């Protein structure tokens, strides 16, 4: 790339989809495409991050996302270190900023952070010299999930602009919903959010999504149905009468799916509460469900993000 052209992704960190231009989102999706191909070979290796240290600082339990980032980093040749909360000093009272200073002193080249508090990743990013990537902070954002979802949709449908995407379930507690609303509306989709009133954030329409409390109405003609996990661990108090009632009103069944477009894509960021927000016959549907494909796209998207965010550090031409 010529040094005279503007940098296609001028951000130091990826703390959220908020603040990204549509062409920057599309750029990351385009970059991810090449890694899908590599991941489908038996080699699965590129050494562009050789010598760089990637620290996965996970302050909140995670298996899938941590594994996805670890695989992404290793496939690019980085030295990957996983720091999980049970091993960290956080349990001894160390503050997040102390942790940030420590990681900085260890000369990390890239830090991937997951934290249970909204805004924690931004706080950490403000204190370190290297790029920081948000792997989910509280209810705030989960940008790589939104990117992998967008990539999955784009590959399945061929385009995103003009599609109707229904995001259904526990919107209130979902960082996935927030990042997806921002990403998909930026790329031209119409986004609906479907949830009972107790799990619907106020003013969600100000983020560009159209709210529905009636599941059937929200599904009507949707091209993509994205189900979310009921986050019981974030709920104290009377949010729902019971999982049984939630399933009856908001669970995705084959009958319900008939409301959506005939070729509607079914998605779920996982892990799923089978029999609650989605039934297995829908989740495992061989043609309609894109859930395992989302996992595959996750690795590619994370490889793309790690590659792009470290380009300046690696002195790639045009990224100074």
């Amino acid at each position, binding site marked *: 790339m010529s040094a005279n052209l503007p940098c296609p992704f001028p951000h130091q960190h990826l703390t959220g989809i*908020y603040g990204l231009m549509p062409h920057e989102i599309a750029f990351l999706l385009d970059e991810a495409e090449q890694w899908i191909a590599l991941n489908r070979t038996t080699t699965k290796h590129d050494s562009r991050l050789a010598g760089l240290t990637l620290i996965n600082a996970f302050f909140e339990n995670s298996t899938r996302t941590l594994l996805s980032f670890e695989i992404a980093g290793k496939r690019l040749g980085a030295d990957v270190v996983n720091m999980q909360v049970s091993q960290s000093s956080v349990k001894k009272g160390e503050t997040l900023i102390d942790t940030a200073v420590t990681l900085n002193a260890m000369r990390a080249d890239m830090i991937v952070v997951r934290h249970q*508090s*909204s*805004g924690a990743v931004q706080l950490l990013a403000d204190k370190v010299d290297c790029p920081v990537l948000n792997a989910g902070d509280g209810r705030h954002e989960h940008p790589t999930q939104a990117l992998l979802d967008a990539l999955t949709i784009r590959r399945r449908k061929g385009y995103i602009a003009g599609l109707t995407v229904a995001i259904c379930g526990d919107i209130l507690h979902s960082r996935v919903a927030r990042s997806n609303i921002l990403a998909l509306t930026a790329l031209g989709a119409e986004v609906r959010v479907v949830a009972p009133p107790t799990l619907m954030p*106020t*003013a969600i329409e100000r983020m560009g999504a159209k709210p529905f409390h009636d599941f059937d109405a929200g599904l009507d003609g949707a091209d993509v149905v994205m189900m979310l996990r009921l986050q019981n661990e974030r709920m104290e108090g009377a949010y729902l009468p019971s999982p049984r009632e939630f399933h009856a009103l908001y669970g995705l069944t084959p009958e319900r799916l008939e409301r959506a477009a005939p070729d509607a894509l079914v998605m779920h960021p996982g892990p799923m509460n089978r029999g609650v927000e989605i039934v297995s016959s829908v989740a495992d549907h061989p043609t309609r469900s894109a859930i395992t494909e989302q996992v595959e796209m996750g690795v590619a998207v994370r490889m793309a993000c790690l590659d792009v965010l470290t380009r300046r550090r690696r002195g790639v031409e045009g990224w100074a």
Partner: protein
Amino acid sequence: MIKPLAIRNARIIDPIAKSDVSGDILIIDRKIAAVGSFDAPADAETLDAKGAYLAPGLVDLGCFAIDMAAFAAGGVTRVALMPDQSPALDHAALVQRAAAAGKPDLWVHPIAAATKGLSGNDLAEIGLMKAAGACSVATGRHWIADSGVMYRLLAYAAALDLVVIAHAEDGGLTSGAVATEGEMATRFGLPAAPAIAEAMAVARDIALAERTGAAIHFRQLSTAAAFDLVRAAKARGVRVTCGISPAYFLLSDIAIGGFRTFARLSPPLRDNDDVAAAVAAIRDGTVDVICSSHDPLGPEAKRLPYADAEAGMSGAETLLTLSLALVRDGVLALPDLVALLSTAPAKLLGLPGGTIEPGAEADLVLFDPDAFWKIDSDRMAGAAGNTPFDGLPVQGKVLTTIKGGVIVK
């Protein structure tokens, strides 16, 4: 013996006479001896005000810490100290000790805890604490959830002629919340409560105060619905008053953008409509007191993810400066603003102060309403610089603070 002090060439703001005239003030033996023109004693020291404004020292109703440097820098000469101390001010001996904390540079007037340990369950010995020097009684940072306890507290306090200072947030609605429901909380994924939580608490407590005949003061109100309730209650003669601090009439919840923990307050910052309602309530007299809610919090409490940070701001140093915006915007005349900052809180709590007449304690603040400066959290005089106004260019600066005839700043 303190030397007499003559302050010459001042613009004297008298909130009671509602006057704003040039003149001099003579202080002898900690008290104002003469106002206007006089012959100063031969041994008097002279302070040339050079045309700066002279007003009664601020009486700050409801601070959370005795922060001498911050109060001196802000022109505050008396503070009503909230009972949320460690330990809580729920015993006469603790009240007595707190009252002695600042003298002579600052007079601290402790507010007694309404319930033991501020737990909201059992009434504290508020009669004994009154005898020990408590100026009023407060529920602390939280409301009292049990309506029966609140009812009995109001009735009991009324018999002792103590004002009950209440925190107005329905705890059932605000449990776990760190922001006001709305676009900002939604975008940032912050646990939020509806703004109506404030009016819910205000409505209940007004009803109980009306029933018991008690005087109730809501230390910080911030929503249109709550101001409407207070306005209506006042109109029918309920003994209700309310306060506000500058953050609520100058900032909306947009200030929490970027997860700025300095803007994490209790109650949380509201939307623009509520900010406009706050200004209207100040304009029409619904708001009785402007206070700082001074709560200096260090990095251990603020350098955390937004939801994990403690609520509170350092406000004493900027109280007068920020409030002067109300005068520049034509909401209030300067003497009326001074009344809200000084005379009204003193009167509400039955404290000396807030006047500028011969015989009154010489608690004064000299300020330049036009001086430009920039609020810098790193350069605050007080214990901590946790202000949501960090970096804001402002107009109006305290030049000198005089407590009992002695210059403390």
